[in-house]
């Protein structure tokens, strides 16, 4: 079975995000392989042990190469990097990625359930539509046999188990597996693995359908009235009083 993993490089979840002049400033921010994408990489490596026929696909700027190397160090076989500084909308991304998927002809494509920079959940579904494939979003369990995928995924009010024929898009999240840490020998090996470079222009995409007008950090000022709980009854009474009289929420 051939498997593609779409991966992205995003600011580390714990990193402080800065914005200046209406634009997020990522200079100096710690960047990492999106945690949501790691579940897909791990799942691919569990299906194809040893990493044969597993390919990382990344659409983004030069810095994405770190995330690509990380996925290769986890064990993926090789990578395709569609390198661009353009910030493309999801429909344009899907059009480019469709072409790459058709070149690679996989049975399965993993996509992170939500991206930690755009907060978008759309890429998996958009790519599935561009290819005319089915999708399973927010997958927590996956088994494959005879070209059929059985999966459990989260819905708005619970869970659902689905069965569908491959090829398909699977979007991943926490709960699917425990992603591995790359070992030092594998980090060394990853440095020699192939990264095929291409550009959006080669697929006829030169601009985005959506324009970012501004990016602001809107932090709500917090009161930070913290009580010492050494005397639980006094602290509890005071907290209830504050919520009733000051915040007026109870």
């Amino acid at each position, binding site marked *: 079975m051939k498997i593609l993993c779409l991966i992205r490089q995003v600011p580390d979840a714990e990193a402080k995000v800065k914005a200046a002049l209406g634009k997020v400033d990522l200079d100096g921010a710690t960047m990492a392989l999106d945690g949501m994408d790691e579940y897909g990489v791990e799942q691919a490596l569990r299906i194809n042990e040893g990493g044969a026929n597993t390919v990382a696909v990344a659409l983004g700027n030069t810095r994405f190469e770190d995330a690509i190397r990380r996925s290769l160090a986890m064990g993926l076989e090789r990578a395709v990097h569609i390198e661009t500084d353009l910030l493309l909308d*999801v429909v344009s991304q899907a059009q480019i990625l469709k072409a790459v998927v058709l070149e690679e002809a996989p049975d399965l494509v993993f996509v992170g359930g939500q991206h930690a920079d755009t907060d978008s959940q759309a890429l998996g*579904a958009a790519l599935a539509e561009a290819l005319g494939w089915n999708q399973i979003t927010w997958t927590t369990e996956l088994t494959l046999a005879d070209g059929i995928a059985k999966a459990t995924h989260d*819905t708005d*009010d619970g869970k659902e188990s689905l069965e569908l024929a491959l090829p398909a898009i699977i979007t991943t999240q926490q709960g699917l597996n425990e992603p591995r840490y790359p070992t030092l020998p594998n980090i060394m090996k990853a440095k020699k693995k192939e990264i095929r470079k291409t550009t959006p222009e080669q697929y006829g995409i030169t601009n985005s359908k959506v324009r970012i007008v501004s990016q602001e950090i809107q932090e709500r000022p917090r009161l930070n009235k913290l009580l010492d709980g050494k005397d639980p009854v006094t602290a*509890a009474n005071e*907290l209830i009083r504050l919520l009733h009289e000051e915040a007026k*929420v109870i």
Partner: protein
Amino acid sequence: MILVVCEFDTKLKKSALEILGAAQRLEDSVTAVLLGTGAGGVALQAAQYASQVLVCEDALLVGAKNMAQAVSDLSEQAEATLVLMAGSRGGREIAPRVAVRLDAPYLEDATVLTNIEGGLQIQHYAYLARVTETLEAIAPIVVCSVKPNTQVVAEANSSAGEIFEVKLELTASGVTVLGRTVEKTSRVALTEASLVVTGGRGLGSPENFALIESLADVLGAGVGATRAAVDAGWRPYGEQVGQTGKTVQPNAYIAVGVSGAVQHLSGMGKSKNIVAINKDAEAPIFKVADYGIIGDLHAIMPALIEAAKKLRD
């Protein structure tokens, strides 16, 4: 004309009333779309808020692929300039497919929607809800999903809209549903609650969630849980708040034994008041708290429940 794809069970869901409200404020001409089994049963309700209602109960209307085909076909037939969908999990797996089919810009999870010449401008959250982004798309048709609980619900029009039954040409999607689990709660729905009490791993055991439930019942609050508590099997998934669970924005969010990981904050950080109870004074949750008690929750929670009861009585 705005095409509004409405979620429903036996009546319109709150998400549907919210996006109908958003549509009414953007434009006079609103078409409500009801797709799937039971659609006919909510048509009269939808007609109060829209100039026309399109209804289709085709049994093949299951799965994101077929739903997306239905929405894009209807929006082309109706010559819509904007397609609005709920930013629910279900809505957000269909909406991108609609945008691809229409080769249209997709604006996702909008909190604010504004008309601009030839298109739409929205605000939404990015970077795990740490950043507010303003986006705009100018195109003959735009697809937009709308974040739940961000819009004032629709008001009934002076005259009811016309109801039309429509036929669609669908083929089997190839997805079979093997089973469904719906998690029910007797309490107020988490996303609609004005007060939420949430427990985390700091509670130490599933039994200790009784403390959370007692306080919630005294206050009439919804009950939430962190990813860690859900993953440990202590609580059902439906109670999960955070990046991979529900997003809530109540008047007060009371976090008990919750450390405050970024992924959790992205689901509740916009709450009007944040209250934290944790023994670790360094827990990140205190950095975003309006009120809090630093101490042992096992001692504090019973006292808090008593104090809340006294206030109520």
